[in-house]
């Protein structure tokens, strides 16, 4: 970094460049833009970030991030309390909520089992899921894991450990996406779709 930039701006650029999607060059552009729009963008952004850092916590029930604990989904009265949808990350919960296809409870694992990254069952929120599934209210657990080897390994592991709980275990379908054309699909997706076919 050039030495004629003040250390405050340099620090700002260096921190911005740590954000996903931003490299040093784009961080510099973002920093310049923030400086230009000091009152319109920089101060509100700084105060929003400070507020988020103070208020946001991880929900003690599902693992979601929210300003309330338990989170607004766990507290919502109109949601189905008998079904838990298990997802890997908070981003997956947001995707499910965007789709609006599910109106039950969630449980966020915080990742998948991975020998490569040294993520073991005790590093994930599996024990708390089993406790929740054993409560009398819950009747179904939906495993909404990614269709990857790690995601499905985790799903099978959870299924094994939910055998003692009196719940129905289901998982999301694998196969042809909406708008997908067979000609453009990869072999794995076609194989999965063929295996998961159902009467029509």
């Amino acid at each position, binding site marked *: 970094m050039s030495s004629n930039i003040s250390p405050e701006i340099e620090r700002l650029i260096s921190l911005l460049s740590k954000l*996903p999607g931003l490299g040093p060059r784009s961080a510099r552009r973002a920093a310049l833009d923030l400086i230009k729009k000091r009152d319109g963008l920089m101060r509100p952004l700084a105060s929003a970030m400070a507020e988020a850092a103070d208020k946001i916590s991880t929900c003690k029930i599902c693992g979601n991030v929210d300003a309330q604990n338990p989170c607004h989904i766990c507290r919502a009265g109109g949601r189905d309390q008998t079904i838990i949808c298990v997802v890997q990350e908070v981003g997956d919960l947001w995707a499910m909520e965007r789709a609006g296809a599910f109106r039950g409870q969630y449980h966020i694992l915080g990742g998948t089992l991975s020998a*490569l990254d040294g993520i073991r069952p005790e590093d994930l929120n599996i024990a708390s899921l089993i406790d929740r599934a054993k409560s009398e209210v819950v009747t179904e657990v939906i495993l909404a894991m990614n269709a990857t*080897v790690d995601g*499905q390994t985790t799903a*099978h592991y959870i299924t094994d450990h939910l055998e003692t709980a009196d719940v129905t275990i289901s998982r999301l379908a694998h196969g042809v996406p909406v708008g997908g054309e067979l000609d453009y699909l*990869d072999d*794995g997706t076609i*194989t999965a779709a063929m295996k998961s076919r159902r009467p029509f």
Partner: protein
Amino acid sequence: MEWVSEGYILSVRKHGETSAIIDVFTPDKGRHLGLVRGGVSRKSRPVLQPGNKVKLQWRGRLSEHLGSFTVEPLSARAAELMEDRLSLAGLNAMCAIARECLPEREPHPEVYDAFQILLMNLHDPDIWPALYVRWEAGLLTAMGYGLDLKSCAATGSNDNLTHVSPRSGRAVSASAAEPYKDKLLVLPLFLQGQPYVTPEDVKAGMVLTGYFLETRVQWGVNKTLPDSRARMIERLSTEGYSR
């Protein structure tokens, strides 16, 4: 530098925001790592799953560089095995063992061939557990720690071999093994060419190859066997294929 080959994906690690570093097992280059640009894209992710067979083109300025791969799918084995928890446990274990135990860039075509056969049979739990043990035994041989199961280490006889010495890796006959039974490892009959495999044999085989892989290969680099192998054994036992 450039080469073209085919191989199986053993693992994929995200690198930066758009790329991935893959670990592949090839017949002529051995286990090899390389960067795949755009490896975490929506198009590449289904291809870059452990167990999938891919065509590889490796490019690097010098042979010792990490280099980058261009990958084309050949077979999507991972998707076929994902549904079945036992097959998936086997796939995870074999990929983890290959990744952990094979040295980089050292060709082992015989281990590769056995890997391929094992992978092709992972859908059939009556066959693959014994194949898996044989593959691990072959891996030990390729690493220079092969088991000598031809004759008894104590008497030289080749009749009624029932155990293996944990010290030498050599077979021991039933009579010579009698006083040391609790210290010796059980030799499953299928490793001596018997066609029948019992759940007890599978368990004995897993213990046998696991012991030597851990003490001879893994301990040398301060590692233990991967968790996925233990999970596979647990699953085999739960489903009655190992006892």
